[in-house]
C-alpha cells in the first residue's frame, strides 16, 4: 500500500483538484443558501493548493506513473499551470456573476474543478485509455457548465449544440483510438511510435484522431459549434471553455502527434494541418469581421487563434520530416516553446476580455453587443482601458503579449523555411503559411479596433444600467492586463519557461 501511495504522490495536483471538487459538491448541499457566496473560495483555495503541489514537481524530470499510464513532465506541468490559472481567474470572475445569473451553487464550482482536473490529467496522460477518460471528464463537465444558466434559452441552445457536436467528435476520436490499438496492439503512446511501417489502419486511425481533436480545439472545418456555444454560454464559462479546453486539447494533440507519430510520419500529417491552419485562420478572421455581437466576434477570433497556434504544429511537422538537415532538429524546441507561449498569452487576453464581457449591460445579459460597448470609456474608464489592452494584444500589435506570441509562431515558420532553402529544398509551404497568417491577422486588426473605437469615440447609449462589478472581477481585469503588458515587455523569461515545457516533447 505504501507503494501505491508513493506512486500517487506526484499526481497530487490532480488529486487535490478532484478532492476540492467533491468538497465543493458537498459544501453546496450542506450549507445554507445565504452562505453560498463562500463557495467560490473553496475553489480558489483548492487551486492555490494544487498550484503549490504542481510547482513542487517542476524541473524534476520525467516521472512515469502507474505502469506508463501517466507521464509527469515539464510539458504536462506547464499546461496544467495554464489550466489552473484559467480556473482561478474563472472563479474570481464569477464571484458576483454567478449570483446574478442564478447559478451560485456548489455544482458550478464543483464542475469547474472536475473539468480542470480532467484537463490536467489529459495533459499528463501517456496512455490512450487515460487520455480518453480524462478527455471525457473534461467534456462532460463542460457540457453541463455551458448550460448552467438553465432558464436562459440561449444557454440551453449553447449546451445542446456543444453537446451534440462534442459527443459526435468524441466518437470519431474513439474510433481512431480503436484503429490505432488494432494496428499496434497497445494503447501506450510511446509504444505506438515503435511500430514500423505505414499501415492503412494506422493512417485511418490518425485521420480520425485529427478529426476528434480538431473539434476540441475548434479548428476549421470542425469549428461549427464554437460560435453558438461561446455566445450562448455564460461569459465566465465561455472564457474557461475558450482557454482551458483549447490548451488541454492542444496538449493532448501535441503529445499524441509528436510522440506517437514522429519523424517521417510527419510527412503524412503536416499537409493536413497546413490546410486546416489556413482554412481556420481565413474563416475565423473573415467571419469575425461581420459580427455585431462582441461575444460571437471573440468566438470567431478564438478560431483564428487556433489557426495561428496550428502554424507552429505545421512548422514542427516540416522540421521533423527533414531530420537529416543539420540544425533542423535544434529549431524544433523554440517552435514548440512559441506555441506554449502563445497559449499562455492567449489565456490572459481571452479571460480578461470575457471578464469584461461578464459586466452586466442589462439585467441578465452580458455586455455583448457593440452598442453596449459604445462610450464605455466614459462610464468605466479603467475597464475600457483594460479591454483595449486585451483587444489590441489579440490583434497582435506591439507592445503586448499577443504580439510577441504571434512573433514567435511566425518566426518559427520562417526559420524552418530558411533552413530548408539553405539546404537546397525548394518548397515554400512554411513561408506561404507564415505570409498568409500575417495577411489574415491584418483583417483582425479591423474588427478588434472597431470595438475600441466604439468604446472611446461613441457616446454612451441610454438605458444601459450597469451593475457594480465585484472585487474579484476588478482584480481579474487588472491582473490580466498587467500580465499581458509584462508578457509583452519582458517575454524572455516566460519564453524560456515555455521552452522548458516543450523539452518533454521535442528536445
Amino acid at each position: 500500500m505504501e507503494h501505491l501511495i508513493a506512486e500517487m504522490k506526484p499526481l497530487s495536483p490532480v488529486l487535490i483538484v478532484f478532492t476540492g471538487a467533491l468538497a465543493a459538491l458537498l459544501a453546496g448541499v450542506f450549507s445554507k443558501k445565504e452562505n453560498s457566496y463562500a463557495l467560490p473560495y473553496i475553489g480558489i483555495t483548492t487551486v492555490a493548493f494544487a498550484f503549490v503541489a504542481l510547482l513542487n514537481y517542476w524541473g524534476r524530470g520525467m516521472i512515469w506513473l502507474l505502469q506508463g499510464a501517466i507521464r509527469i513532465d515539464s510539458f504536462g506541468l506547464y499546461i496544467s499551470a495554464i489550466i489552473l490559472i484559467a480556473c482561478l481567474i474563472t472563479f474570481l470572475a464569477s464571484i458576483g456573476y454567478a449570483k446574478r445569473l442564478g447559478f451560485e451553487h456548489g455544482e458550478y464550482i464543483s464542475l469547474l474543478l472536475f473539468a480542470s482536473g480532467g484537463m490536467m490529467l489529459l495533459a499528463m496522460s501517456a496512455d490512450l485509455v487515460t487520455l480518453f477518460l480524462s478527455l471525457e471528464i473534461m467534456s462532460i463537465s463542460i457540457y453541463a457548465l455551458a448550460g448552467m444558466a438553465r432558464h436562459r434559452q440561449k444557454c440551453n441552445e449553447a449546451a445542446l449544440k456543444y453537446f451534440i457536436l462534442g459527443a459526435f467528435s468524441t466518437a470519431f476520436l474513439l474510433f481512431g483510438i480503436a484503429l490505432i490499438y488494432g494496428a499496434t496492439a497497445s494503447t501506450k503512446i510511446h509504444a505506438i511510435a515503435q511500430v514500423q511501417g505505414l499501415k492503412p489502419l494506422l493512417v485511418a486511425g490518425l485521420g480520425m484522431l485529427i478529426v476528434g481533436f480538431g473539434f476540441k480545439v475548434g479548428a476549421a472545418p470542425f469549428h461549427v459549434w464554437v460560435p453558438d456555444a461561446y455566445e450562448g454560454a455564460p461569459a465566465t464559462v465561455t472564457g474557461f471553455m475558450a482557454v482551458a479546453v483549447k490548451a488541454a486539447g492542444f496538449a493532448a494533440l501535441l503529445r499524441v502527434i509528436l510522440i506517437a507519430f514522429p519523424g517521417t510520419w510527419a510527412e503524412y500529417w503536416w499537409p493536413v494541418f497546413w490546410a486546416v491552419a489556413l482554412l481556420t485562420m481565413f474563416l475565423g478572421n473573415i467571419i469575425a469581421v461581420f459580427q455585431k455581437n462582441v461575444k460571437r466576434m471573440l468566438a470567431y477570433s478564438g478560431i483564428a487563434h487556433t489557426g495561428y497556434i496550428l502554424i507552429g504544429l505545421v512548422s514542427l511537422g516540416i522540421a521533423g520530416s527533414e531530420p537529416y538537415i543539420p540544425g533542423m532538429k535544434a529549431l524544433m524546441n523554440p517552435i514548440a516553446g512559441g506555441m506554449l507561449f502563445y497559449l499562455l498569452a492567449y489565456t490572459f487576453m481571452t479571460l480578461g476580455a470575457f471578464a469584461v464581457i461578464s459586466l452586466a449591460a442589462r439585467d441578465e445579459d452580458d455586455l455583448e453587443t457593440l452598442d453596449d460597448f459604445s462610450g464605455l470609456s466614459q462610464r468605466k474608464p479603467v475597464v475600457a482601458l483594460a479591454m483595449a489592452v486585451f483587444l489590441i494584444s489579440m490583434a497582435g500589435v506591439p507592445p503586448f503579449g499577443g504580439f510577441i506570441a504571434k512573433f514567435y509562431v511566425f518566426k518559427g515558420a520562417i526559420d524552418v523555411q530558411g533552413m530548408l532553402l539553405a539546404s537546397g529544398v525548394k518548397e515554400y509551404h512554411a513561408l506561404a503559411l507564415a505570409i498568409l497568417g500575417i495577411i489574415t491577422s491584418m483583417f483582425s486588426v479591423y474588427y478588434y479596433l472597431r470595438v475600441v473605437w466604439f468604446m472611446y469615440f461613441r457616446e454612451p447609449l441610454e438605458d444601459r444600467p450597469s451593475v457594480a462589478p465585484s472585487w474579484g472581477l476588478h482584480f481579474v481585469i487588472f491582473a490580466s492586463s498587467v500580465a499581458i503588458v509584462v508578457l509583452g515587455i519582458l517575454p524572455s523569461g516566460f519564453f524560456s519557461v515555455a521552452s522548458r515545457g516543450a523539452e518533454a516533447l521535442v528536445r
Partner: protein
Amino acid sequence: MSDVMFVALAVVSTASALLLVTRRNPLYAALCMMVLFGTTALLFLKLSAPFLAAMQVLVYGGAVLMLFLFTIMLLNLHPEELGSEKGLTFKLSAGILSAVLAIFLIYAVKFSRDMTGGSFPELPAGSAAFGSAESVGEGIFDAFVLPFELVSVLIVAAVAGAIVLTKKKL
C-alpha cells in the same frame, strides 16, 4: 454454423441500426436500439467475451436504454409535435457523406489484411479464460487502476451536471 450466426447477427444489427436512424417516432427508434444492443451483446459472446456481453446488456440495456425511454415518456411528444424532417436532398447528401466514410474505413481495414485478415487466433481451452470477469479484473487492477478510479469521478461529475440541469428546485 459460426459463419451463419455471424452473418445473421450482422444483418440484424445493420438492419436495426438503419431502422433506428430512419424512424420518425423516437419510441420505435429506442426499440431498434434495444435490438442493436442485444445483437452487439451476442457478437461479444461470439468474440469469446461473455463478461462484456453481460455488461453490455446491463449498461446499455439497463441504464442507457432506460434513460432514453424515461426521457421519451417525459417529453411524450404527440405525433404532430415530432417536428419536421430535413429535405430529401439534404438526407441524400448526408447519406453520400456517411457512405464515403464507410468506404474509407472498409478500405483501410481491407488493405491491412496482413493484420486483420484471417480468422481469430485460437484460444487455449481451459486456462485463464480470455473474456472472463477474472481476466478483465486482473487487467483493471494491474495496469488500469487509474482509469478505474477515474470512472467514479466521471460518473459523479455526470450526475452532478445532470441534476443541476434538470432538478426543478435547487
